[in-house]
């Protein structure tokens, strides 16, 4: 007689848990704060206006086109589309990738390209190939929040270099490299999102791009250029990618179809010098053998229609409008002491509030008003940093929701600013048009603040 299958029993005791805990690899020990994870879980409620995600707007993709393409795949290539494919990806997919990179002035050798399961896997594979526990990895401060857990899980010692409006501070990078030299350490790579950075929204200047590439050449140091948004430029002159400036000797390029077509198809790519690529391919084979053949067929069909640049132009129009809406709303609703970036492309604005506001706590307050954002600490390996900053996404929701969302966050901030004024006697600071209160206005209240805490 056949046994009836039954549901797996949940862990029943802390002893069970301890038994598994003894088996966990050391790399699982590096965890983010659970309180913050719980908070982020609440942002998924349907009534919440979420400026927290990194979602492109997929609602504008024409359903008819999608249906026709998928039908054609079924009619013409069912067997192949449902089969395994090569680890490096189909040659036809690589052709599409070359087209996208060509649009930004890059011309890699097709043999240097591997199709990955999203840009995220490319970052993972690069780390898998290059990073041993304790190795130094350098990235921007703030950096892409999704890269932080990757660096952590390979137990890298991550050093973050400050950004300003021209991107990563190369002078700071140089002094960090000099310090590492003196410690006998050689960083495995410098990770950068040079264009419309996630989360800061800033773009690395041409001068700094040149310096970074030159530095990489001189020191024979690898740079990982992650460029999901390069083609999503709303204005200004396009800047050459690091890969183009370097010619592909020391720059590993990471790209993705997520932001120019769809994140649901989970297709990205990496371009690396042949010896590195060889190891990346082995790493990918071990990870998942190959990326989805079905969605690679979709990409081929889609690029075959030769409309992909028009679609990007539509997205650029849409996102430019939404960025403008968000910037306008920030001017209207955020306090005078707040600053924010005004990106020329991409999906994100990075706002920085007065130091006494912790955006993790602010998120709890904002959630009561049904609005969410990403607290800045998610973009730092050291969770005590970025505490008064936040990432705001403008691509995933419509103009009305952007306005309303920013209004609600602004209201929560205003309440905290006002309260701080009441607590410290620095009420004047809250008024945007006035300069900061002179030091002596606090004299008759309490010896709070202004003096730094010992």
């Amino acid at each position, binding site marked *: 007689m056949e046994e009836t299958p039954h549901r797996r029993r949940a862990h029943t005791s802390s002893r069970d848990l301890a038994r598994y805990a003894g088996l966990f690899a050391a790399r699982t020990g590096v965890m983010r704060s659970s*309180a913050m994870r719980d908070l982020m879980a609440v942002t998924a409620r349907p009534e919440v206006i979420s400026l927290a995600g990194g979602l492109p707007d997929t609602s504008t993709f024409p359903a008819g086109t999608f249906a026709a393409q998928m039908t054609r795949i079924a009619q013409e290539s069912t067997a192949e589309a449902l089969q395994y494919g090569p680890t490096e990806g189909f040659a036809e997919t690589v052709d599409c990738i070359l087209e996208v990179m060509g649009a930004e002035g890059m011309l890699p050798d097709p043999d240097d390209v591997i199709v990955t399961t999203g840009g995220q896997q490319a970052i993972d594979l690069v780390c898998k190939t290059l990073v041993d526990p304790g190795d130094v990895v350098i990235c921007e401060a703030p950096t892409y929040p999704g890269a932080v857990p990757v660096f952590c899980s390979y137990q890298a010692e991550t050093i973050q270099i400050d950004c300003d409006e021209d991107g990563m501070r190369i002078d700071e990078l140089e002094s960090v490299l000099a310090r590492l030299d003196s410690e006998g350490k050689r960083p495995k790579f410098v990770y950068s999102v040079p264009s419309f950075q996630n989360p800061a929204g800033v773009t690395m200047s041409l001068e700094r791009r040149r310096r970074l590439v030159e530095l990489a050449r001189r020191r024979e140091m690898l740079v990982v250029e992650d460029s999901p948004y390069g083609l999503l430029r709303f204005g200004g002159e396009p800047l050459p990618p690091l890969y183009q400036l370097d010619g592909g000797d020391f720059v590993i390029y990471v790209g993705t179809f997520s932001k120019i077509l769809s994140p649901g198809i989970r297709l990205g790519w990496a371009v690396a010098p042949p010896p590195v690529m060889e190891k990346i391919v082995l790493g990918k084979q071990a990870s998942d053998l190959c990326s989805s053949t079905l969605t690679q067929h979709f990409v081929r069909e889609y690029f075959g229609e030769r409309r992909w640049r028009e679609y990007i132009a539509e997205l650029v129009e849409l996102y430019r409008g939404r960025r403008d809406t968000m910037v306008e709303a920030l001017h209207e609703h955020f306090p005078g002491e707040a600053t924010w970036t005004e990106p020329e492309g991409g999906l994100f604005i990075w706002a920085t509030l007065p130091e006494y506001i912790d955006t993790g706590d602010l998120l*709890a307050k904002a959630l009561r008003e049904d609005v969410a954002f990403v607290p800045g600490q998610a973009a730092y390996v050291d969770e005590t940093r970025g505490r008064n900053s936040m990432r705001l996404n403008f691509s995933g929701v419509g103009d009305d929701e952007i306005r309303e969302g920013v209004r609600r966050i602004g209201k929560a901030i205003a309440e905290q600013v*006002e*309260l701080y004024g009441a607590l410290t006697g620095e009420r004047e600071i809250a008024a945007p048009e006035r300069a900061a209160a002179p030091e002596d206005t606090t004299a008759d209240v309490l010896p709070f603040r202004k003096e730094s805490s010992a």
Partner: protein
Amino acid sequence: MKVAVLKGGRSLERGVSLRSGARVEDALERLGHEVVSIDAGADLVKRLAAGRPDAAFVAMHGVGGEDGTVQELLEILGIPFTGPGVAACARCIDKVLAKGELRDNGVPTPDWFAFNETAFRELGAADALGELEERLGFPLMVKPSRGGSALGVRLAASWFEVPEALISAFSYDSRVLLERFVAGRELAVSVLGGEALPVVEAIPADGDPYDFEARYEIGRTDFVCPAELGEDELGAVTDAALGAYEALGCSGFSRVDLILAEEGPQVLEVNAIPGLTDTSLLPQAAEAAGMSFEELVERILELALKPAAA
């Protein structure tokens, strides 16, 4: 028996609640009960009325589920439910109210002052903060009055850290308390049907006594159960915990968090509906008492149906 498991809801502790709820559902099914799983939302009353459960297992934490709101609805609908009643929940969730009750009933709790936002915004309460140094000393704890986890809880080492800590706490509630910091061993006493279970001690793994977020994470905090306590210590701790449980009018089960200081136990708070996840303290305590999770769930249910059995 048909049991509705209430979980989730809108509180900031939604994530923990979903985990508690899922685990309770598993246990109830293994015990042979029919489970109606309800993520508490706008259709809660409709679903309860339609499902007609014999009892409700409330596995909700934080504001909305642990503060008497859901319990009030269950009372109106005439559905017996697990854990403390409306009034006890309302007292436990609000640390300011709870500490007042504790003090009035002679249960030791650290000295505190409570402020609401209006006091600072409109009544110049900042000028009264000067009293704090003398009365409470530094460091002191700043906490939102309502809220179960470590969210918004800060330690202020000096004057300079008080305004930021207050802003943090006020992000979670319109009332906050400033509490004397008591150094000592951190203990949790789970009470089941009026009886204390073995005491759990939380020992920070990295030795940072001020990392309150770490309290809730396995790996960052070691939990010892039963805690190593002398006979007198155990007696004092148990008395304080049961005193707190009674003072707040709890029934069914609850968890009392306290510090064992040099001057004796000091009760910090009572969690009306403590976590029931696989890393939670109440299930650990029950296990140390020889009860499986199923037995614990069955006992909690039994207490809900026959309160006199307590």
